């Protein structure tokens, strides 16, 4: 019996939230995108984590390669080698990517990115264009690689009402020990944690974000700032700036130039960044430029999984842009 609670959902509301795409393409919007366009967008918005060729950066997912490895040790599971339906890729990119900036892509951009992912898996040629119309023409290699849960049959012998209670085996030997690998995280002693917290407080009390006088009077070049804003798109999936900015994958970057390293409240920095902060690292222009050029080389152990800005001009522009943004 109905209680008459709630209200009818409006068509426009359903359209706003009902974004899922089924394997037969149901739910796809109009649009199209080609491999070349996809490559450009991918480099700008996806390569930070997934690599220029969708090969993955660090622990972030690899999207290409691995075909023919599923029956090997440590199979490589990618869109090309494992994912059964292209709709899943479209749906996920559209709904949840880029990480930290979800639902910012247009349908055409999603089509283009998915076309590029297909290309990076050698599944289409470089002149390929993906569209709503051509979508179901694409079949992924592992479409038939899945079976529905068969544990009830394949593992029927685990349903044995009378398990062995005595003399179940003749001998028992230890065949593997966890301590040999030694990968269990160390559990800090409470005392050490307390000391660390105290040290953090001391650091926080130190005059933090005071910029050296000479840097405080730099006049900003509007054109450079504008260029920097464009380059900063590469950073936006992890970093926010401006009013109301919050720390996401990376810390808020308001007033970062001239500030002490590792001082955004509430952000969980890497051990490396904490150590640099304790040593008094200040993000002046020189240090920031070196960090942005090759983050992992500059600071071994940083959480920032960004390959770096290749051109000095880009670095200068981003720094100018960062000078221009503040939370106020």
């Amino acid at each position, binding site marked *: 019996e*109905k*209680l008459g*609670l*709630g209200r*009818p*959902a409006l068509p426009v*509301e*359903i359209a706003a*939230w*009902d974004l*899922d795409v089924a*394997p037969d393409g149901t739910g796809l919007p109009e649009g199209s995108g080609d491999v070349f366009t996809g490559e450009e967008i991918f480099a700008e918005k996806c390569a930070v*984590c997934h690599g220029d060729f969708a090969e993955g950066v660090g*622990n972030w997912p690899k999207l290409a390669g691995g075909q023919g490895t*599923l*029956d090997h*040790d*440590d*199979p490589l*599971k990618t869109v090309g080698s*494992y994912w*059964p339906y292209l709709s*899943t890729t479209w749906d*996920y990119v559209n709904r*949840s990517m880029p*990480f930290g900036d*979800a*639902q910012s892509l247009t349908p055409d951009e999603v089509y283009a990115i998915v076309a590029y992912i297909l290309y990076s898996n050698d599944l289409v040629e470089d002149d390929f264009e993906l569209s709503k119309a051509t979508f179901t023409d694409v079949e992924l290699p592992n479409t038939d*690689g*899945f*079976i529905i*849960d*068969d*544990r009830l049959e*394949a*593992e029927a012998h*685990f*349903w*044995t*009402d009378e*398990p*062995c*209670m005595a*003399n*179940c085996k003749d001998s*028992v030997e*230890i*065949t*593997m020990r*966890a*301590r040999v690998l030694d990968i*269990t*995280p160390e*559990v800090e002693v*409470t005392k050490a*944690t307390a000391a660390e917290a105290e040290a953090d407080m001391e650091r926080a009390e130190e005059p933090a974000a005071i910029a050296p006088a000479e840097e405080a009077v730099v006049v900003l070049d509007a054109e450079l700032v504008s260029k920097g804003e464009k380059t900063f798109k590469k950073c936006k999936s992890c970093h926010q700036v401006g009013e109301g900015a919050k720390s*996401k*994958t990376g810390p808020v970057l308001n007033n970062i130039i001239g500030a002490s390293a590792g001082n955004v409240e509430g952000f969980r920095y890497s051990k490396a960044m904490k150590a640099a902060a304790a040593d008094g690292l200040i993000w002046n222009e020189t240090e920031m430029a070196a960090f942005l050029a090759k983050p992992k080389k500059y600071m071994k152990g940083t*959480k920032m*999984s960004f390959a770096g800005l290749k051109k000095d001009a880009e670095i200068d522009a981003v720094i100018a842009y960062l000078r221009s943004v503040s939370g106020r």
Partner: protein
Amino acid sequence: TPDPLITEVQDWASGLGDGVDATPYGLPIEYEADVVRRNVEWLTADTISSINFTPIHALDGTITPQGCAFERHHSGAIELRKEGYRLMINGLVDTPLVFTYADLERFPRENRVYFCECAANSGMEWAGAQLNGAQFTHGMIHNMEYSGVSLRTLLEEAGVNPAGKWVYVEGADASSNGRSIPLEKAMDDVLVAFKANGEALRKEHGYPVRLVVPGWEGNMWIKWLRRIEVTEGPIESREETSKYTDTLADGTSRKWTWEMDAKSVVTSPSPQSPIKHGVGPLVISGLAWSGRGAITGVDVSVDGGKSWTEARLAAPGTDKALTRFYLDINWDGSEMLLQSRARDASGYVQPTKAQLREVRGLNSIYHNNAIQTWWVKTDGEAENVEVS
């Protein structure tokens, strides 16, 4: 010698403690500061799309406090206030509906205790004994009393069309974490919950509203639940194709492996909870659970599985919830290869790792419910090992 803790007047016996206004919503006392969730840094690329572990080695009973119940999110734990909360039911229904949080509170309510286990719990142990501690090997689990509305009630309010065979459920966070659930399960025991253990859900568990899918893998328990779509078929989302599928030795993969099979673990003694009192009376304690029904019994072995003794259940097992077991022994100080083996109402007996590998090969990630072995040494320290 007399104990000065008894013979001398202690500060706490002469001075005064905190007033009732000291802690309006309490935290554990500082001496328990090491009983916290922990994460394993090398497991994931960052801590936002990641997981941490319940300190099961240090807890007792069956109810997991929310504050130390494991977290797993795919785009971080978002902040969504009740006033900003909307739940939509659409798809193959008579009337697509939108509910506010206040609407949900006006439907008839249920209270149920269920465990929630991540399909990847013990996943790092497939390759061999890896992590030293029950928290890390078995801590992707919690068990809470949920208050909420039966999903069936909400679906009936919208009116499911005969063509509807599945529901697609998704969250309000950036990952959305959508999953397809057969209508039969959705109409059975699934809850739309807004309280856990009597209090509002914590942010990290989906405040203000999450889905509870009893006995099925934790990934389907959508947090920040925002939409339920009745569909003809499954959507085959990322979380039910590229993830949460199980690759067998021949390269084919099982999908829709929803049920969490019967499993158990000795929580103490264990690597993080060694024996410190020497020989004599010893409480062996652990947890058992099954996604296919109630736990009917747990056997404990101290000799690596050569022989087994039936443990004492602290209370009769209940449907798809944690059961606490105890075995009280007189420890003679000799080494033990400590194991536990769960049995459930469906007649299933928890298998060994060798038995699982025989069927599934070595490339599995999810659904490792194998028997765990702790090597307890003569000094009472314990280590995670595998035995023949």
